[in-house]
């Protein structure tokens, strides 16, 4: 798997740009992913979504359903797309360091 260097850190990623291991996540990773995902400036709302995703994953071992993410953050799906143009799966989960979504996508 390829590795990328960013701000003195090195990350191992797959073809889709997802990090190899949840544990290797850091704020540098967030900064690295943001430009690929069409995000200019990170704000508190971005960080909030990332925090919710990471806490949910740590507790449950899976990513939350879209509905749960909306409920916990209080952001409607439309707003999540405004924050993360590729959506909660490709955008937010990638940035939060969660494993790549699977299934019939």
């Amino acid at each position, binding site marked *: 798997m390829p590795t990328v260097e960013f701000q003195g850190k090195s990350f191992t990623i797959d*073809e*889709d740009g*997802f990090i190899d291991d949840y544990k290797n996540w850091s704020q540098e990773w967030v900064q690295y992913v943001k430009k690929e995902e*069409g995000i200019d400036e990170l704000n508190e709302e971005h960080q909030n979504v990332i925090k919710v995703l990471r806490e949910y994953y740590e507790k449950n071992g*899976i990513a939350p*359903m*879209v*509905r749960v993410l909306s409920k916990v953050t209080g952001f409607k*799906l*439309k707003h999540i*797309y405004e924050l993360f*143009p*590729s*959506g*909660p*799966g*490709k955008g937010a989960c*990638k940035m939060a360091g969660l494993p*790549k*979504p*699977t*299934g*019939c*996508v």
Partner: protein
Amino acid sequence: MAKHATPMLDQLETGPWPSFVTDIKRQAEFRKKNQEKMNYQIPVDVCEDLLGILELSFKHGRTHWKHGGIVGVFGYGGGVIGRYCDQPEQFPGVAHFHTMRVAQPAGKFYTSSYLRELCDLWDFRGSGITNMHGSTGDIIFLGTTTPQLEEIFFELTHRINQDLGGSGSNLRTPSDCVGQARCEFACYDTQALCHDLTNEYQDELHRPAFPYKFKFKFDGCPNCCVASIARSDMSFIGTWRDDIRVDQKAVAAYIGGELKANAGAHSGRDWGKFDIQKEVIALCPTGCMRYEGGKLEINNRECTRCMHCINVMPRALRIGLERGLSILVGAKAPILDGAQMGTLLVPFISAEPPYSEIKETVIEPVWDWWMEEGKNRERLGELIKRQGFGKLLEVTGFKPDPRMVKEPRSNPYIFWKEEEVEGGWERDINEFRKHHQR
């Protein structure tokens, strides 16, 4: 000289059926020659590498595509199926081989100029290989690289005025039978309804918000030419509720042999002279037809509108004039808890634009329920199984109707609501003991 030897695939160039191998080789040749001097945006030898890796799979009896793949375009959560081969050094042309779903026009009627535009775009930015069409209905562009996705999307939308189809946990691309465009059985305008609902629910189609996938399909009559009853979570099947129109002269022409039964569908074999008694009257599932004294009679009250008699004598029998559709819900493939076909929810509903009754009393209440109650990756059919058809009736507000069951339940595990039972559920054992010693 081809890039890879493909002895097994070469065998599939023999025989009378159009060979996909021959076609892909022709496309490989077309790209290599490049007579139009096109500046190909993905490897020129993509088709050759595709055949190469397919040959390898024939040899191994295993797929050579990696697991999953998450790619797409900004603003949408679906529409592109990412794919990477697991032998990228040997077959660099298909290291990236993503599929794009492109929304198709209802009924799949095209003009050559439109298809030419799509092909020009795809030759330039993709493999030139397609699937016309995916099972759900989309035009499928087979094979391109990640950097091309936004480029293709830009040209599709800005130049060709064309959107992507659906993928993921959302409303997938709706599709329909040809309907009134060229079928005398169509009980409503399937293309108009398919198009209208596709436009109405673009948001649900492009940005996954559901527990799992959800499909619409539209059939003009119970013959189900787009198989909505088997292949869609919500199936719209045209029907009528007045009388079948009978042209007795044409009936006589069928009996006299001037008109061919089933429009000549069985002419490949000698089945003898048309026998209306044997081929129509006796095959009617409800036995509601009779032919006496040169006159065909139908007891329409007992007709279940199975289409058999109309299918056999299309020139003599026609659908009624009071038309609409039935809505069935819950069809799905086996995973997880077994295959299901659609179950009748709405026996008859009007299908006139702007279709507000369909949207407001059926689609949206069903979605509200399933989006709230559906578990992760639970199809509507499975939620109906888990929470019960009664719950579905409650949330949609439809009254239970004998037409909603094939037969009543045979087990006696019947739930009652507390308010339906005199005295309710709160009981005191001491009251009981006053009359019944321990």
